[in-house]
Structure formats: structure tokens, C-alpha cells
């Protein structure tokens, strides 16, 4: 058994888990944060993407024990109270989701992508950066539009803040 302490969505948590426990299992089953999903077994679909120490990772391909001492952000922690994150708002505004299952991973991947690149993103960059996230509903069309819009808005916000 492994004893782990970490920060999840701003809250300090600790637990004793089997060594084989995946981070996604810990989030879903121990913490009840079921927004992070599991859509495959081979680390490809990206439904489980969360941020660990500010970087997008697949929570199904990391042991909970490896996350000891880290700071984890899941989809449940992205909004500030009732204020949606610009990427969340853009997914709704541009109909970037249908069944909603891939959506948390998509949104977390999009936030990471925008953070890394800064500035407004073009379509080709967004499509390439989505290599690790599979959606079966939207044909990606509106996901790309949503991320384009959110990246432009976030770039504008950054500029305004400077």
C-alpha cells in the first residue's frame, strides 16, 4: 500500500491506496471526482486528461503513487465558482460537445494547449495538438472552433491584463 498526499483542485488530500491504483481510479473512486473519464485501455482516447503540476497528462497512465506530492487539477476544479473557464464557455457557445463523455479531457487538453502556445491558435495547430484526444460525436469541427475562439479570447485577456 502507498500513502500519498497531494493537492486536488486546491484541496489537500491524502490517502492510502494499493500500489497498483491508477491516478484516475483514485480521482474517481476515492475522491468521487467522476468528471474524469476512462474511454480506453491503451492511453489513446484522452478522456482522462487532467493537469498534474500544470501539465496535461493522462490520468489512466499514471499511478496514484506517482502523483504523491503533486498538484492536480481536474475538470471539476477548472471553473471559478459559477464563472466558467473561457474554454468551458467556448465549448458550450460553439457546440463543441454532444454526448459529453470526451469533453472533460478535451477541455483540459485545450487549456493546456492554449497555455503552452500562448496567443490565438490556428486550425492546423489545434487539430495537430488534439492528437491525444478522441471524440466520436462532433467530427471535431466545433471542438476546433471552440478552441480557436477560446485561445483568441484568452490571448485578449492576457493582453488586457498586461
Amino acid at each position: 500500500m502507498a500513502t500519498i498526499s497531494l493537492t486536488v483542485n486546491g484541496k489537500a488530500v491524502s490517502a492510502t491506496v494499493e500500489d497498483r491504483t491508477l491516478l484516475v481510479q483514485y480521482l474517481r473512486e476515492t475522491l468521487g471526482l467522476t468528471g474524469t473519464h476512462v474511454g480506453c485501455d491503451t492511453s489513446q482516447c484522452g478522456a482522462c486528461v487532467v493537469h498534474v503540476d500544470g501539465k496535461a497528462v493522462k490520468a489512466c497512465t499514471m499511478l496514484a503513487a506517482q502523483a504523491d506530492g503533486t498538484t492536480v487539477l481536474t475538470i471539476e476544479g477548472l471553473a471559478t465558482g459559477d464563472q466558467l473557464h473561457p474554454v468551458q464557455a467556448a465549448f458550450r457557445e460553439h457546440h463543441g460537445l454532444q454526448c459529453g463523455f470526451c469533453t472533460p479531457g478535451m477541455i483540459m487538453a485545450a487549456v493546456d494547449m492554449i497555455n503552452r502556445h500562448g496567443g490565438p491558435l490556428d486550425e492546423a495547430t489545434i487539430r495537430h495538438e488534439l492528437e491525444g484526444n478522441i471524440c466520436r460525436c462532433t467530427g471535431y469541427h466545433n471542438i476546433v472552433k471552440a478552441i480557436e475562439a477560446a485561445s483568441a479570447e484568452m490571448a485578449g485577456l492576457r493582453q488586457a491584463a498586461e
Partner: protein
Amino acid sequence: MGLEGIGARVVRKEDKRFITGRGKYTDDIVLKDTTHGVFVRSPHAHAKILSIDTAAALAAPGVIAVLTGADLAGDRIGGLICGWMIHSRDGSPMKAGAHPAIAHDRVRHVGDQVALVIAETKAEARDAAELVEVEYETLPAVVDPAHAMDADAPQLHDVAPNNLIFDWVLGDEAATDAAFANAAHVVELDIINNRLSPNPMEPRSAIGYYDPSEEHYDLYTTSQNPHVARLVLSAFIGIAPEHKLRVVAPDVGGGFGAKIYIYPEETACLWASKRIGGRPVKWTSERAEAFLTDCHGRDHVTKAKLALAADGTFLALRSDTIANIGAYMSTFSSATPTYLHGTLLSGQYVIPAIFTNVKAVYTNTTPVDAYRGAGRPEATFIVERLVETAARQLGMDPAELRRKNFIRSFPYQTPVILTYDAGDFEGNLDKALAAVDYAGFAARKAEAKARGKLRGIGFSSYIEACGIAPSQAVGSLGSGVGLWESAEVRVNPVGSVEILTGSHSHGQGHETTFAQLVNERLGIGMENIQIVHGDTDKVQFGMGTYGSRSGAVGMSAIVKALDKVEAKAKKIAAHLMEASEADIVMEGGELKVAGTDKKLPFFQVALAAYTAHNLPAGMEPGLKEGAFYDPTNFTYPAGTYICEVEVDPDTGKVEIVQFVAVDDFGRIINPMIVEGQVHGGLAQGIGQALMEGVSYDPQSGQLLTGSYMDYCMPRADDVPSFKVDHVTTLCPGNPLGMKGCGEAGAIGSPPAVINAITDAIGNNNLSMPATPAKVWAAVHAA
């Protein structure tokens, strides 16, 4: 059109919970004292089960029970059923083999259930599952439908000699053959419509719970049609009487057909909960299991031909298909290759004579059933590949050959049962040609050639039949159920509204579009409308969502119920305002006396209905109405899709540089949602054309595409942004004039893609999926 009414681009009401991670999918539900089930599955495609030793598994940590097919049979639990009877050309009924939820004496595909291990945790159940010792005697397997009827092919079910389930025909064979005999031109194609795995991103999941004190069962399951699941589990499988079984399909993460069916796993979990004394049993599929057990789609082997007059007029079409049903007949597996397929072979064209023969066969593969489009993509691929090939053989422009043969007057009775009710096929084509800049294609092709790329353009003018369907008609064709829909409109005393619908949303946005309809009719704000679905305890009955039926059928039922609510509200308003009922009009959320300034807000009428202090004499209190709607016809969405590709001749890689989709869906409630449906369908159709294909080892029957490492799912950089537009002819068959929009993209797109690639490379011999390796070989064989 109001801001939130019919035709408005309203953002979705349901989105907030999904974008904040608060959706509630089946696997997210944790009932008290939940146990976890893991299935032991056959590693063999075909084998006899000689013995099963569960002792070691039972002794493993955390294990509660290990259940086998013998236990299931001992409890007299029935097998799974196919709910649509098809008769062969000789009049004999289809030959359905038994399909126990857990295999008893024999396994027939890799992944067949052999035992269910139930433990305190999923990890413990999985550890123990490896300790179940099953002794098999392996048998030869057949996976290729083209060889299933061979004399020496292994036999799957005793009831079906030569693995033949039915030998079905439709159309006039003699007239068709005569037309071919006299035709100036005959175009022939051999077609394989590739087997696909639907792959909704949410894997299937089920929680069965038996409450011994009430002798009542709950099933939470990833279903597109919870009421049908309840009916089948009760009436046919016999687990519980219908009134003692509640089926809940909460948020469901995509279906595409794969979640229509009643599956072994949910059946077993429900039954097992009672076996273990009433603790919930939860099972969630892993993706590897999903590839082995979610019903696949397509898998047809077809010989097809088209007869033409010297001037290009179509004379006749014939197709002969072998349809792979897999190892067992799934819930609607017989309908897909027959009435959802053969009836569409007229396409958008006047074709005087049509004949089709479909032989359905068993193979040692995962069961095959409806997947987005279901039979109609296969038909469209036949028709649109034949037409494009004919244009090339006759040296005609493919757009003009289509135009020449389009059906132009409606209603139009095809030679294959259907009566098309409305359409503007030429309008679709012209709009698509303009959007794609067809005139500029030659210049684009030349420019691509200068860069070493082969550019091609391909068309597909599809028509499909959806909104299934008039109950009497489908009954006469073999359906075991009627395909109406129900709705209930509950107006609360404060004037807010709940709509209970038998349709089920698993991505389609019903919580928004259905509310838009109510907003349009009653003038109530979207925030005061709640759509309730997916729970048999709440909704009286319903047939669920598949076959693009929620709009045309589900919303029509809501319209009927709203009509009744409106009629009663008008009676009450007339009474309260001392006016004639005939003078009451309803607009903007108010009931007004025409020609006067007298009016009452809707909520006051609702309140009056519930206080019942002053109602017309003899009127019952309350404002709640239900309705059942049975469609009078299918609806017929149609459109033209044009795909433009560039092929890299050195690698065979295909890039879709342009994709135009012009569809006629009749009345559109929310253009944003309809466009989203088209986008998703197009990506699935492009996936079928370019990258997706289930592959089995032909000898061992092992699945070779068992994960996303080998089964190629379309990713964001595989597809372009789509150009989507509409032409509108209203459907005369339902009150809103709607046609279904859910499947068109997947139906129309594959032939457009293949027509474009074969145009680019100058070789018409190319099967789906057109992977880089295949395209490269075709380029170099040309």
C-alpha cells in the same frame, strides 16, 4: 421564430453539467454495497466447453460468487432475442440460434461470456477471473461471410444449416433481369462494405440491483432505449415482471446504435444481483471488451450492377449481398441488411426495375447489428459507386448523369416498397456544386499535379429513410414491436413545464431542442422547461432513440400532447374571460381573446386548472396531457455530398481538402445542433471510407483490431472543417415537417470519399477502408 423557439441557434441546456464534469454516466453511479462483476471470456473463436472449474476463483480474496451458464439455465433465464422476423424467399422463417447471456456448452466468438466473477472490488474480480479454469475443445472457425456457406465451413448453430439464417429477396427479379438483357450499358462492381466498431466513447456499463424486500429490480444501463430493454428483459428473458423492473439510462456517452441492443452483460448483472442476495452488481466494459462485444456494423459482401440505356438513362439495378450477422442474432440484426437496406436501392433516381437478394450468415465473430445508418450506408454505397462508375464508363459528367436520372415528382413510389414524399434533389446538387466550386476543379487538379499530388473529386447523392416508422407497416414486415413514440406534457400549477419523452438523448441535445418546441408553442422561457427521459419509472413508455427518430417521431408525440394542453387551456381561458373558445388565441405565453384586449398569462390558466375553483362545468382539474404518435411514413432526408481529395502517390496518404454536405432535413429546430449531427456523421463516414475496419485472423478468428493501437479512429487532423448547408422541403408526414438528421452524414459520405480517391488515382478498384497502404498499391496498379 422567437429567440429560443423553432429555428433558433440556442446553446444547449444540458451542456453545463458536461463541461463542469458533473454529468452522471452509469459508471459514475455508486450504489450502497456495490459489488463488481468481471466476465471470463472465451479466448477461442469456436470451441466446446468441456468443463468449468470455479473453485480457485471462489477461494480468491474478495470473491462473492462465480456464476456460469449452467447457473443461468438452472434459474430458467431465457436467451437473448432478435426482435424482427425475416422470411426467406421460400417463405420459411429465419433460423435464429439460441443466445444465452452466458455461454453454456459452446462458445462462438472470441469474447463470448463464459462466467461472471463477482467480488468486492473490480481488481479482485479481475484477479479471480484468471483463476476460473475452463477446459475447451477448440473447433474450426469461419469469419469471412463469403465462405460461411461453403460446404466445408464450420457450423455455428444446428438450426441454421450452412450457417444460412435467411435468404431474402425484394423486387421483381424477372423484370430486372430482362432490363439487363436489353441494356446498352451494364456497370458491375464487387463491393465489400467493411465491418466497423461503433466506438461510442463511453464504454458500456450496467448496474443490476435486486431489492429482496420489495422483490423489485433496478437496472442502470448505457441504453438508447430503456423501455425496450425492460420489455425484453421481462417478457422474453424472464428475469422479472415488467412492473417489478425499473430501467434507468442516465447520461449516456454516445450510442450510434451500439447501445440499442439488449446485451448479455446487463442481463447477467441483473440476474446475478438476486443470486448474491440483493447487492448491486456493477460491470463496466474496458475498451478491449468493447471491441470484442459491442455489436459491430456493416460487413456486407456484394455483387452489384446497373443497367443503362445508351443515353445514360437508368434501367435497372441488381445487387446480391451476403450479410455477416456474426455468432448470434442481436436484437435488430435481421432488419438492418433487409428492410433498412434493400428498400433504399433506388437512391434518388428513377430506376424502373430493382431486385436484391440478401443472404444472412453466421460466422465466428462478434454479433453485427445496426450502426449509425444501418443498412442505408450499404445501399447508398452500392448506388452511388455504381452511378459514379457508370459516368466514367460512359464518359459523362457524374453530376449531370445524376441530374438526368433524378426523381422529380412526389410522391414517388419506388420499386422497393418505399414512397418518397418530398424532396428537391436537383436543388441539393446545385447548391453543393456551387459550394465546392466545381467549375474551378480542373484548375485545382492541375495546380496539385504541379506539386506532385493527385487531386480527385467525388459525389454522393444519398437518400435515406428514417424516423422509423409506421407501426402497422413495420409489423407487416416482421418487427416485433410498434415504432411509435409517446410523450407527456405536465404543466405545473406555477406554469412551468415538464416534458416526459420516450426518446433518449445520448448526445443529440433533446433537453434543448424539445424545450425549444415547448417555448415556441407555450411561450415559456427555456429555464422553466424540463425534459425528462431515460427512466422507466418516470416515463410511461417509449421506443427510444435510433434511426433518426427523435425529431420526426418523438417530437411529433410532444406536439400531439401540446395540442391537447393548448385545447384545454383555451377552454379554461374562454371560461375565465367569458369568451367563446373559438376566439381564444395563444401567443407569446398569453391566451388572448381575438379582437379584444382581454388576455390571461399562461401561468394563470395553469394555476386555475389546479385550483379548480372556477373551471368549465364537468372539466377535470389539472393540466397534464399524454399522447402517442404513430408515424404515417418514414421521412426521407436526402442530399448531395462532394468530397475533394489529394493523394500523395508516394505514400498513398489521402488528404480530404474539401468536403461539402448539402442536406434536406425539412424543418430544422436548432441549426447548431443539426450541423453538429452532420459533422459527426461525416467523420464516421470518412472513418469508414479511409481508416476504420474490424479485422479478424481468417484462420483462428482472433480479433486483430482489438484496441485503438490497431483500430483506426478518426482524429482531429484526419478530417477537415466541413462546409454544411441545407435545402428545405418540408416532410408532409408529420406535424412539424421534420426529417431525421442523425445518420445522414454517415450514410452519404463513404461513396463520396471513395469516388474522389478513385477519380484522383485513375483506378476504380479500391475497397474500404482506403488506407495509405491500399491506396499506394492502387496507385501503382493503375
